[in-house]
């Protein structure tokens, strides 16, 4: 038994992990700096499989990082910048303390700054990687762009966020990439498909925030710092992919128009440019000015092993997508001042519609209310005084629902003062067995091109009396059916030997249902087979079945709730009559 004694925790998993504090010491950074570094570099803690082993026998709760990650951080040039910054702050404090204002100024001028370009390249080696991870960036930028320009963060950050989000929206409009939109109680969700990646972001409603006290804005600011850089590079690339000028410029035509209109309202052209862009009403300038977008016809390459039907389906889908892109083409919208302008303008422009608003609401309105060619006016108030006869007055939900349904929905349900149909989430994809709200079924029927059942309903109301008679008849039928059911039940009981008292009664011909028998047999077989399952598998099986049952239960519950609600509504209607 020669050799050195092996010490504990000097090999194996204990050496692969490092606690946060140790990592911090190794990097010689303060905790906030370490946190910032982790955020910027995308380093996250790891949960070791054997916590106790890694923790050197202790069970205290600790955060572990991979040692490899920390070693990787050691080479980061930004760490040096952090240290420089620390020194800078110290010098500045000293200068302030000595009231050496000249040196304060000099120091401030030489404030160390860092760039995140290389980190982005490193974290997202390919453009698609970056696109995939853009959801959070968009959400954060949209949130920060709504912040008031006081307090919580630098005004430059807010302005940058605003600029980037406007650029993004303009890109989505230009590429017609928007797919789905959803008005939730949190804000408005948008989903766009960019280069095959589904990107979802959430925009808060335009209200001032009451800033919570238990939120660390430094963390948020660090994230935003990273995200703005990321989003900027992505925007650049995306604009160039569409041959658009970056930073975005308005179309020459549009620009001149705007200039004519608003020259007197705005003092400086540079000031109003972002606002003009954010009005989303004008198209962007292109690098190569092409009058018409050449629609490249996709050549069909039949993949081997793909039958015609499959290909046709794909083609159809493509056509549908094209159709969706031109959903609002030829429609002229006018937004009243009480509707969320930016969201609606974004939406309508994304699907090819024309949109305008009152001049006093925002810069960039293109036509007046009095324009006779307006087809839809979007209004969110119970009534409006002056109505034009040749346009629809509709509530804003119509636009959102149309986008989600991918067709122009009938406007009747969305007129002023009408109780709106429920707004459904386009992100829910019902599998069979899930509960599908009836409104969704209706929309699906419309999508298939079926006639809406709306008129029938009205008829129904008219013929209610008749219906009642029918109901009575049905009830009679029901009673018969019930009898039959009872009999069947009794028979079943007999067949299973549950009835204990054997009495000689007048025999009835027992009709054997072969299909049913077979079914029963199968069910029993299954039951027996389940009995023979191994313990582990049984556990898993039970779990799966439990989940399934719960789903069914929930669906049933929703259906029952809906039914109760409808019944209540109906009875209320009747009572009113």
């Amino acid at each position, binding site marked *: 038994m020669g050799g050195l004694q092996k010490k504990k925790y000097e090999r194996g998993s204990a050496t692969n992990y490092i606690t946060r504090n140790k990592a911090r010491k190794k990097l010689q950074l303060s905790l906030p700096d370490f946190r910032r570094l982790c955020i910027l570099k995308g380093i*996250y803690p790891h949960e070791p499989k054997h916590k106790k082993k890694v923790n050197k026998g202790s069970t205290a709760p600790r955060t572990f990082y991979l040692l490899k990650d920390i070693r990787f951080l050691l080479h980061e040039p930004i760490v040096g910048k952090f240290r420089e910054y620390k020194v800078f702050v110290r010098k500045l404090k000293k200068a302030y303390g000595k009231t050496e204002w000249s040196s304060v100024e000099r120091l401030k001028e030489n404030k160390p700054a860092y760039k995140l370009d290389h980190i982005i390249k490193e974290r997202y080696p390919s453009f698609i990687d970056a696109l995939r991870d853009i959801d959070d960036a968009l959400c954060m930028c949209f949130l920060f762009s709504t912040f008031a320009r006081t307090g919580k963060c630098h005004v430059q950050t807010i302005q940058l966020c605003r600029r980037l989000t406007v650029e993004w929206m303009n890109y989505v409009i230009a590429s017609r990439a928007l797919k789905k939109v959803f008005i939730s109680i949190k804000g408005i969700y948008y989903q766009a498909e960019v280069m095959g990646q589904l990107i979802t972001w959430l925009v808060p409603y335009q209200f001032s925030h009451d800033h*919570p006290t238990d939120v660390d804005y430094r963390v948020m600011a660090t994230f935003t710092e990273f995200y703005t850089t990321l989003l900027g590079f992505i925007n650049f690339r995306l604009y160039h992919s569409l041959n658009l000028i970056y930073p975005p410029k308005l179309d020459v035509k549009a620009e001149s128009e705007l200039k004519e209109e608003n020259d007197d309202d705005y003092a400086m052209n540079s000031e109003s440019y972002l606002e003009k862009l954010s009005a989303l009403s004008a198209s962007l300038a292109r690098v190569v000015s092409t009058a018409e977008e050449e629609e490249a016809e996709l050549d069909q390459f039949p993949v081997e092993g793909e039958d015609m039907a499959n290909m046709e389906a794909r083609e159809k889908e493509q056509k549908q997508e094209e159709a969706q892109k031109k959903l609002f083409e030829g429609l002229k919208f006018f937004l009243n001042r009480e*509707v969320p302008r930016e969201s609606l303008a974004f939406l309508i422009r994304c699907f090819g519609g024309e949109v305008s608003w009152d001049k006093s609401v925002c810069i960039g309105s293109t036509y007046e209310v009095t324009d006779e060619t307006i087809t839809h006016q979007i209004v969110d108030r119970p009534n409006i005084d002056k109505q034009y006869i040749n346009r629809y007055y509709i509530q804003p939900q119509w636009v959102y629902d149309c986008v989600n349904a991918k067709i122009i929905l009938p406007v009747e349900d969305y007129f002023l003062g009408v109780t709106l149909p429920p707004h459904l989430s386009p992100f829910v994809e019902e599998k069979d067995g899930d509960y599908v709200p009836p409104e969704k079924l209706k929309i699906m029927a419309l999508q298939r091109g079926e006639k809406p059942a709306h008129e029938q309903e009205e008829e129904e109301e008219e013929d209610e009396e008749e219906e009642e008679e029918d109901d009575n008849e049905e009830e009679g039928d029901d009673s018969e059916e019930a009898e039959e059911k009872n009999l069947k039940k009794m028979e079943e009981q007999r067949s299973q030997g549950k009835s204990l008292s054997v009495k000689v009664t007048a025999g009835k011909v027992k009709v054997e249902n072969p299909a049913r028998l077979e079914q029963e047999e199968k069910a029993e077989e299954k039951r027996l087979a389940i009995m023979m399952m191994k313990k582990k598998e049984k556990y898993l099986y039970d779990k799966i079945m439990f989940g399934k049952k719960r789903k069914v239960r929930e669906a049933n519950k929703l259906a029952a709730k809906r039914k109760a609600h409808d019944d209540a509504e109906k009875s209320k209607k009747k009572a009113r009559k």
Partner: protein
Amino acid sequence: MEESSSSSTRSAAQTEKMKEKEPEKSGKKRNKAEEEEDEELFNFKNKSTEEEEEDEDLSDSEDSIFSGLEDSGSDEDDEDEELSDDEEEEEEGLDDGDLKLEPEQTQQSCVVLQIETKKRTGGGRTEEAKQEDEYVHDSSDEESCVVLQIETKKRTGGGRTEEAKQEDEYVHDSSDEEDIRNTVGNVPMEWYRDFPHIGYNLDGKKIYKPIRNKDELDDFLDKMDNPDYWRTVPDKQTGSDVVLSDEQVQLVNRLQRGQFGDANFNEYEPQVEFFSRDVMLHPVTNRPADKRSFIPSLIEKEKVSKLVHAIKMGWIKPRRVEDDSRGRYYDLWANEDSSILARHKMHLPAPKIPLPGHQESYNPPPEYLFTDEERALWEQQDPCDRKFPFVPRKFSSLRQVPAFSRFIHERFERCLDLYLCPRQRKMRVNVNPEDLIPKLPKPKDLQPFPTTQSLVYRGHSGLVRSISVSPSGQWLASGSDDGSVRFWEVCSSRCLKTVQVGGAVKSVAWNPNPSVCLLAVALDSVVLILSPSLADRQVVLSSERLLSAPQEADANEGAGPVTWSEGEGEELNQGIRLKIQHPKAVQQVSWHAKGDYVASVMPDHSSNLQVLIHQLSRRRSQNPFRKNKGLVQCVSFHPVRPYFFVGTQRSVRIYNLVKQEMTKKLQANSKWISSMAVHPGGDHVICGSYDCRLSWFDLDLSTKPYKMLRHHKKAVRGVAYHRLYPLFASASDDGTVIVCHGTVYNDLLQNPLIVPVKVLRGHDITHDLGVLDVTFHPTQPWVFSSGADATIRLFT
């Protein structure tokens, strides 16, 4: 230098101006003095002079107030100069006067002299002198006598006029000097509230408050009657009431309106630029330049050299070029190389935020809204347990939707998740549950087995503990807690015979030997051997013969713990042939396949006397075990070989009866074995246990169960093998009998196939007891079960 020169020029200009002004001023002064003098004159002059004087008065009165102000206030500094000037002028004037006066009388000259003497006496009196002087100038020759008069008057009442004049000055005096009759200074007068005095005069004497005997009523009357009440103000310093003059009231009004105190002050006078932009010709000061302005500064040199050094050493960096690269973007992914970092492979992208469902809509379908109970539940739940972090709400229109109050929170939590949460790739089990179900041979293919309940044997009034079928398959014996043993015909379900044994029957067992017809019954501490005579005569006779075997055992009778006795009288009629009295309660009896031996079980923790084997032919009993190896639950003989199975609480021991040793000990992996059955082949054993399990042992394989079956929900009470068919059944307290197919292959390499084929229900559960015993028909694929509901059922 330019500035200074300009300033100097300016100041020069100023002085010039001043000089210009001065004569004016003095003139003014003169005017004023004149006027005052005129007033004086009114008093003393005759009516004749009045008219002339009035003219003068009119002309000069305009300036009166203003001149007074100017006099008193601003130009104190110049007083001396003025004085001197005045004097000079006066002297000049005097000269003139002298020249004029010379032709006149000497009286006047003497007056002049007098004046001069006065002047000489003191500067303070100069003004007076002036007046007089002027008067001298103004007055015409005719009135010289009057002047003289006045002069004399003045001389007499000079002090008085002076005083009046002084008072007059005080009226106009807007300067700071306070009334120093009270010397307390600028202190809050409340401090003197409780004292009779309000301060001290210059002599240090107390100033007493004026006695006020005015009450409210007086005050009120005063208010009503006195037209000046509104302008009456209490003086804090003296405590007396002061009636404000019109001027003072006006002043107050002006101040209240925010105007200047002086009504005639023009705020918009053209600005006089002291320092004009014009370059003056001459410097303001004539001071020669300092020497230091010619010599280079040493201190500055030092400073510069320090800076140069710092720059050389790189301590001071040149001003950084404004970095506007922030927010300037370029094509970062222009040259995409596929050199993905090694780290990157391990990198797990953060999971995306789950997409919202219908319930998050601002206008969800009504079924997604919470009912009151759901809402209450949601509020009660811990925030982490909630299904949704929000309450679904419905708004009738978009404009009513408020801001989401937790928006920033949620974003922040997402941030925390991104940088604080360990990420893990979790493999989701994506199994079709149908695939988990084992593929078993179809029960249809494994027929025959009992499927339906066909007969129910009723008659017992207590729970039926044990049943047994005769080897011929025609008869069924059952023992019940009601103290009876019944014999049933299997096919007709008729009870042929009832034997009252006088005790709860624990176990019945039919002799497996088809050539005899005997039944062993265990009750209390007795084992009865019954001969029910339900067979051919031949068989009955042979069984009689077996029982009436030689009586050798008598010799041992005293030694053994067991007493054998024959049935007598009535008992004999009922068929009870033998009684074997045990020392303890007997739980179970079990026959050897040959039918000569019967084993009885008396469970006992503390003794080795738990199992007894009785030989009927020789009426002999023996205790095979010398040691207590655990509580014995059940025993069984091997169907063909001389093995004996003893089921204790946890295990089954197999003894070789010939070699008298234990050959195997089967670990049942269960807590408490309840029953045991041996396969007719003899190589397999099944054990039922009270913890719901049934364990199948393959004796050739291992001492561990080959298979554990957990089919029952409750304790397994009985198990049985079929003698011919590959079937076994288990009875449980959950009221079911489960029949399983258990094929045992002769080929040793092939494991037995065990498939449950039927769950038979029928027994009612009474007092938590379901089916107590189960047994197969010896030839048919039928199974009998006896239950706590006092019935026996046949499933075919």
